[in-house]
């Protein structure tokens, strides 16, 4: 038995909590059912009932009876429309269990809300109107539930009062549904005949449907064994935050996503291949011997290895996948359709990575489960896609681990959450070639040269003076006996990037290569000076993340475009203006100035010599040079 010296009390875990969603079509009575569950399990307070009675007269659709749906429908506008438009979360507790209910709309265009609710749930109640039977929406809801990894279904055949409590009718609907759902991979499907309006088989057994021998709804929800089993899965610990209160303590804070770990266990960082052992598992209530899925802890390690936010700690014999291409189901949630090739921000666990949907393999018709060819994916559509990221991501398949196999897609211009994805398989595993952990590390290489490596990144318009200042800095460092290397945009274009043009994709690839080369050089202990226009923040950020923000020094060489065009050292501006060069930064492609550069050089106000000296002074003040 696994024991802990001190417990980390989390109220969600002290009493076993069941999270479920309800889905059904507009008039199937979902909100009424939830209201009924809350009411009959005595979860509605007296003042809320009084408010309900008031509202029932104003908005209600049930005549003199209390309209339970009003208790659940929260926002003013939708109350007037009589349609639930969003996801509402309700909570109730019985002596046996506590419950969180996501009320999700069944209205045609709100697939995204249902997916949102389903992502949190372990069980789904699918409502069917006994008069109508299995409908198109029923199939859609079931498919989405299956896709989002829900394994337990309650088929609530509602309005059984309106078919005179007919057993035949109930049996037929249950049979139809079982036949349809056989291929969806559910672990359990339990049909229950209910009347939400009159309370039959919700909390109390129905006297009128006395042919039904199974459990009533609440009884079933209280007793179903949702063996999430996350503690027995492979250990995954996504690092949320590096806790460094003083130089003597360096801990990695996060919540154990799955599995368990004990002090002394060996762990590996999937992206670097580095291994070490867990030294301590720190909490406010004292150190723990072990931690398991759901525990929020801070882990310290035996060796100081390079770990940051977004890394995942696992055991060496059971690692997550590392790849920069994977296949995934994507649910689109934005008005603006998903465009293949467009750059988005992906949030995978605590990793934030830029990437794109490289290819749409097929779209899925949620009503028929048919595969359709598609050039784009619109709001509320689901597609199976190939995703490409600009740096390797760490993940598991979604059906193995919901926490490390899910991601959201963020539009980088509007910042809206545009889509949600569930990873199926990695396509190109950089980690299939398991990374070779080097036995001489970068620290030692730098120590041999008696210096601290870094990447000094000059960005600015063409003709701003980047190369000239970078050259001067290089000379000064050389004079100080520092080992440096200068990477210049024009020079690299003749060799490493000779195959690339100036399209957006090629420019991004060029900077990716430069970033990789700069990182290798910094790893070998060099001070690397880079001079590239690098017009977008995103590409500079990628290099910053790659190199590590502590060793990346962004130098903004700021010269007004009029002055650059006047200088025009290579005659490029005149060519661009006459249309002979396309995508020229500052003319027909935009330059995004750094928001917070490490140093901002205004070349109109100071000489090249002053600028170069300012860079060297910064290196001294950052203790990269010792003056």
């Amino acid at each position, binding site marked *: 038995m696994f024991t802990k010296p001190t417990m980390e009390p989390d109220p969600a875990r002290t009493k076993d909590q069941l999270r479920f969603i309800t889905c059904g079509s507009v008039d199937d009575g979902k909100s009424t059912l939830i209201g009924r569950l809350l009411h009959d399990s005595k979860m509605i*307070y007296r003042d809320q009932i009084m408010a309900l009675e008031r509202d029932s007269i104003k908005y209600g659709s049930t005549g003199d009876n209390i309209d339970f749906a009003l208790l659940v429908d929260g*926002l003013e506008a939708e109350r007037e429309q009589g349609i639930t438009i969003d996801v509402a979360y309700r909570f109730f507790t019985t002596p046996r269990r506590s419950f969180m209910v996501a009320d999700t709309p069944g209205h045609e265009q709100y697939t995204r809300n249902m997916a949102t609710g389903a992502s949190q749930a372990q069980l789904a109640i699918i409502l069917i109107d006994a008069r109508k039977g299995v409908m198109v929406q029923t199939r859609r809801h079931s498919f989405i539930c299956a896709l989002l990894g829900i394994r337990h279904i309650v088929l609530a055949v509602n309005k059984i009062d309106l078919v005179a409590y007919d057993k035949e009718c109930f049996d037929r609907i249950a049979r139809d549904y079982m036949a349809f759902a056989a291929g969806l991979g559910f672990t359990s499907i339990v049909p229950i005949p209910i009347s939400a309006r009159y309370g039959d088989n919700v909390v109390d057994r129905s006297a009128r449907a006395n042919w039904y021998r199974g459990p009533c709804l609440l009884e079933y929800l209280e007793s179903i064994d949702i063996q999430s089993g996350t503690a027995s899965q492979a250990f995954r610990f996504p690092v949320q935050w590096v806790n460094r209160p003083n130089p003597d303590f360096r801990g990695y804070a996060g919540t154990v996503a799955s599995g368990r770990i004990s002090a002394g266990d060996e762990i590996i960082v999937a992206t670097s291949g580095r291994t070490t052992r867990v030294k301590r598992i720190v909490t406010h209530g004292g150190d723990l011997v072990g931690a398991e899925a759901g525990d929020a802890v801070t882990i310290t390690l035996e060796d100081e290895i390079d770990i940051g936010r977004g890394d995942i700690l696992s055991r060496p014999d059971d690692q997550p996948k590392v790849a920069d291409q994977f296949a995934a189901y994507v649910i689109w949630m934005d008005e603006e359709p998903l465009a293949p090739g467009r750059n988005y921000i992906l949030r995978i666990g605590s990793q934030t990575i830029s990437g794109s949907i490289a290819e749409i393999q097929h779209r899925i018709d949620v009503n028929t489960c048919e595969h359709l060819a598609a050039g784009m994916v619109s709001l509320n559509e689901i597609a199976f896609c190939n995703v490409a990221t600009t740096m390797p991501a760490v993940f598991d398949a979604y059906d193995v681990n919901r926490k490390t196999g899910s991601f959201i897609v963020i539009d980088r211009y509007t910042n809206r959450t545009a889509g949600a994805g569930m990873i199926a398989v990695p396509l190109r595993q950089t980690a299939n070639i398991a990374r070779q952990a080097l036995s001489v590390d970068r620290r030692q290489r730098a120590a041999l040269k008696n210096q601290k490596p870094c990447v000094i990144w000059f960005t600015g318009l063409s003709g701003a003076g980047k190369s000239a200042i970078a050259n001067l800095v290089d000379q000064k460092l050389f004079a100080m006996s520092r080992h440096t290397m200068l990477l210049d945009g024009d020079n690299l274009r003749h060799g490493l990037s000779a195959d690339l043009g100036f399209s957006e994709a090629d420019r991004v690839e060029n900077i990716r290569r430069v970033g990789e080369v700069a990182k290798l050089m910094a790893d070998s202990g060099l001070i690397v000076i880079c001079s590239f226009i690098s017009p977008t923040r995103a590409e500079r950020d990628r290099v910053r993340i790659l190199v590590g923000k502590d060793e990346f020094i962004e130098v903004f060489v700021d010269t007004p475009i009029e002055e650059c065009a006047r200088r025009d050292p290579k005659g490029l501006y005149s060519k661009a203006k006459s249309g002979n060069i396309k995508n020229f930064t500052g003319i027909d492609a935009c330059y995004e100035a750094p928001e917070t550069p490490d140093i901002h050089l205004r070349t109109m106000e100071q000489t090249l010599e002053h600028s170069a000296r300012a860079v060297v002074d910064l290196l001294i003040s950052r203790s990269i040079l010792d003056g």
Partner: protein
Amino acid sequence: MRDVVAEFKRPVMLYSIGKDSSVLLHLAIKAFYPAKIPFPLLHVDTTWKFREMISFRDATAKRLGLDLIVHVNKDGSARGINPIKSGSALHTQVMKTDALKHALDLHGFDAAFGGARRDEERSRAKERILSFRSAGHVWDPRNQRPELWSLFNTRIRQGETMRVFAMSNWTELEVWEYIMIEKIPVVPLYFAKRRPIVHRNGAMIMVDDERLPLNCDETPEMRMIRFRTLGCYPLSGAIESDATTIEDIVAEMQTATVSERQGRLIDTDEAASMEKKKREGYF
């Protein structure tokens, strides 16, 4: 919480002194231990809080060595806004909502933690955990980001802010059970004691200081009371109770028949009034 600290430039915790704030503060201490809480606390003081709340606030800040910012809408005080003469709606708007927005702008906070829970009130049930506010602190319930799994979209532009409800999925009972298990200190007003009260609009209002004008037919009477929710004293209704320990409160909660916000006079101003206040920037 750790995600927010990692992703935002200048987070702050809104500290209202109540039980939820006490739990939130405790969670923050645990989340960042052994480091200190890496953000300040902000209390928007309407100047009409119970005296015991203020002394509890100051004692807590001192005991834990907190970076506490107390903000008062000086303009509102100068204009003599108060909950009795100005009415609860205007008082809340000026001394809480406006004051909060002003304080957030003044310090350039881009993310604000709050202790609000989804079980409190109907419009809160649909609230996000990370609730997006456009420039000017406007909450548009139609323009909120879907939240799947526990993957939060933390990206905002200059001037936009995020409210972060870390306790969204807690219930009132769970809050008290947690306070009991973790032995978290709370304001003594939550425990029953004989206190002077008057009856107004069907609620029991405690006479906390001489600023509460008494009608000629009103004489404060001593009753055994406690509060389930704390705010400005003239707007907070007490309940009769014998619960003098946390164990008593948990037991009382399990048999409670009215909701906690019933004691909040500001909620009943008009139908769906919480939603209105939220759109205007109330927490």
